[in-house]
């Protein structure tokens, strides 16, 4: 035994405390890691936001149904729904659809829409050129507002996918 046990014990304790500290940080590091992982793999229905112009090629031979779902969090006193429940598109073609939101209260309210795409493997292939979900939306008292979404599906969409569901949930942006 080269050193007295007390200094060895202190060294072991400090090393283990460092591990504990690193793991505390790792718990927080899981937050960005999770986002990166979801972005790379397209898991969890995350949609890439701002995108360039549509791809040149359009696949006329294939039709894909895109369904729209509109939800609102119960704390948000709005009416929110798509004008059309579903459209049929050719991959590569750009399409614009409209959602309608109406503020049912006598005060101005700001909302934020969180998108989700199902199935998960389609989420990387649905590109939005314009979307009300890019920014917060403020509705004046009793205001009714039409909100467009312009999107296209890229032709790399897996052949097994014939229906894509695009869902939005509106939350009160002030929590």
């Amino acid at each position, binding site marked *: 035994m080269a050193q007295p*046990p007390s200094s*060895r*014990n202190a060294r*072991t*304790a400090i090393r*283990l*405390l460092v*591990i*504990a*500290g690193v*793991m*505390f*940080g*790792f*718990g*927080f590091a*899981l*937050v960005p890691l*999770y986002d990166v992982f979801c972005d790379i*793999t397209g*898991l*969890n*229905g995350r949609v890439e936001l701002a995108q360039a112009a549509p791809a040149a090629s359009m696949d006329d031979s294939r039709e894909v149904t895109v369904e729209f779902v509109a939800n609102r*969090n119960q704390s948000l006193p709005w009416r929110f729904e798509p004008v059309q429940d579903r459209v049929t598109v050719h991959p590569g073609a750009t399409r614009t659809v409209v959602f309608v939101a109406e503020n049912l209260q006598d005060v101005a309210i700001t909302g*934020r829409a*969180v998108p989700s795409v199902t199935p*998960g*493997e389609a989420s990387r292939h649905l590109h939005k050129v314009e979307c009300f979900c890019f920014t917060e939306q403020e509705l004046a008292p009793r205001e009714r507002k039409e909100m467009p979404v312009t999107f296209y599906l890229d032709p790399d969409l897996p052949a097994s996918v014939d229906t894509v569901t695009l869902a939005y*949930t509106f*939350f*009160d*942006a002030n*929590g």
Partner: protein
Amino acid sequence: MSVDISVQEHHHEGPDPNFFRRWLTTTNHKDLGSLYLMFSLLMFFIGGTMALVIRAELFQPGLQLVRPEFFNQMTTMHALIMVFGAVMPAFVGLSNWLLPIQLGAPDMALPRLNNWGFWILPFAFSLLLMTLFLPGGAPASGWTMYAPLVMQTGAAFPFMIFAIHLMGISSIMGAINVAATILNLRAPGMTLMKMPLFAWAWLITSFLLVAVMPVLAGAVTMLLTDRYFGTSFFNAAGGGDPVLYQHIFWFFGHPEVYIMILPAFGIVSHIIPTFARKRLFGYASMVYALGAIAFLSFIVWAHHMFTVGMPLAGELFFMFATMLIAVPTGVKVFNWLATMWRGSLSFETPMLFALAFVFLFTIGGFSGLMLAVTPADFQYHDSYFVVAHFHYVLVPGAVFSIMAAVYFWLPKWTGHMYDERLGKLHFWLSTIFVNLTFFPMHFAGLAGMPRRIPDYALQFTTWNEMASIGAFGFGLSQLLFLYIIVKCVRGGEKATAQVWDGADGLEWTLPSPAPYHTFTTPPVVR
């Protein structure tokens, strides 16, 4: 193991005669081990009483005794108290009492940290228990504290978070102490691969604790800042993700369930060879199996959340990784069986509990394998089948191993033999009632009864009546356990140093009861 005890001399300085100064300021591992164990027993009765409230309400369909909100508080508090207050402190208490006398060390490596680690616990659980009297009541969102549901907790919310922080700090301090003791204070000649298996199990457990308790602390800190400081880690409206909470929680949660079972494996690996009067069949394979189980615990967490909408590749990975755990666990079970094979078995109370552990823990393991099958899990998820599964691994698993350990080492601690007749009675009552409580839950769950709900459909009535009768029987049987311990502490047949004729290890070279100071000069292990 051959031991040279001729060089031992025992200090004659006893404990502090002042009662309060002794127990509040003690740094003696035996005192602290006793404190941990008594605290754990107290929490076991408090958490058990809450379980009986749950079972009383579920005795019949409809709402009879408690409001649904209070029912949810009972399920949440029962789990938090049993996990963090009963099972974990019991194992820390056993490590305190046993590791120094098994390794030939004079005390734990960090005795003052040891005192601090214990005395945090009464404060942590006072914080948690006082929430029962706050407006809005105790936390009611389940011990998993899933966001966003947990955000509906009333005034209890910060109390729960800080209680968890304190429990985590206590566990980490205990774990650091155990690891430092095992790594630095073994008797000369005791290499790692000559250590008692309880020490191996606890060394690996301590690394699990140091690695995952801070992750839980991080998760609950994020809940705290989401609620009070405007962050949006788990708040979808702010760009966060509630599913992320489940990932972080179960990254802690799965290693946590092994924290509650690895020390049990160590205990059983001492008791079975003793009463089979044979060496453990395969020591090295037991050590490697412990390590493999600990490693796998870090890569299987998402099997708790198969239904959140993971991609196929994720479901498959977590399914196969989970099934892989059955391999090292099987190595352990077959090791215990092979140890008993052609042994000169005798069936004293510790052996009975150890045998019940092997048999009933394996039932819990098998239902775990069923739950690991992703497509089947979609039916079992959040049903009473899950409740049956984890109670089989935790009650006749972890808790039975603790009871086995208490009966096994109680003569060494107190110097008296416990009442063998009452011990056997306690064993049979516990074993019959524990099965009556939890076995019917498998059937109720497979038939579709959801967990955490105070009412149920009429067709589940019979299974629930059986479970409730079993639960009251099991709970009342534990009063007998308390009586046996008190009786043994106060007197009884004098125990010899060896206590059990098949016992092997340094602790059995000490007189019974073990003196206040032991191995002040380390023994030599050849």
